[in-house]
């Protein structure tokens, strides 16, 4: 499949996965935001919650 359509050969040294880094950075931000939202808004804001007797 590769040989039919590829326009150029890229070896290990001339390939920097900058697009992957960009995508995964977005995913990272999304994860951080969603985690904080789920934990502090959806969970801790959803009282009553089980607490210890102090």
């Amino acid at each position, binding site marked *: 499949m590769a040989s039919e359509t590829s326009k150029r050969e890229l070896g290990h040294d001339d390939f*920097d*996965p*900058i697009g*992957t*880094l960009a995508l*995964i*950075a977005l995913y*990272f931000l999304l*994860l*951080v935001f969603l*985690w*904080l939202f789920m*934990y502090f808004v959806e*969970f*801790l804001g*959803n*009282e*009553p*919650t*089980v*607490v*210890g*007797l*102090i």
Partner: protein
Amino acid sequence: MNIHTYEKLWLVGAMLLIVGFIATVTYGAVGVGVTMIDDSEETIDPTQLDEDERFSEPRVEQVGENEYDVYVVARQFMFQPDPIEVPAGSDVTFYVTSADVIHSFSVAGTNVNTMVIPGEVSTMTVEFDEPGEYGIVCNEYCGSGHHAMEAMLIVQPEDEFELEEGEN
């Protein structure tokens, strides 16, 4: 081993995420005081609940000024007592056990949720600040009538609450 710089960056990011998650959960446990269901209660014979002083008569019991204990038995396909009535502004400790199979005791739409395993007693303490009505469901499959297993939890306004004798 040759790891690309970008991948090293991501490795650091991934570790930050993992540590951050653990830190948040630890904050919830230590800072906010959310405790987990644990092994603090002794085991019990589920066929002998009738002999048991706490569960022979499932009930709400006042144990302190604003403190109540609730003894709940989950069985195919009901909870006892039903409804459970407690006053607002109180600390309520639930003791829940099963007379037959594995159930759960889950106050719908809240974070009050526990598995109920025959032979074990689940305990959890909950602060009820405001009056309100909640549905209680069994969210673990317990047999062909599972979808009918429900009860009500009624948090009464403080001045209207009255503990009935022998309530169940």
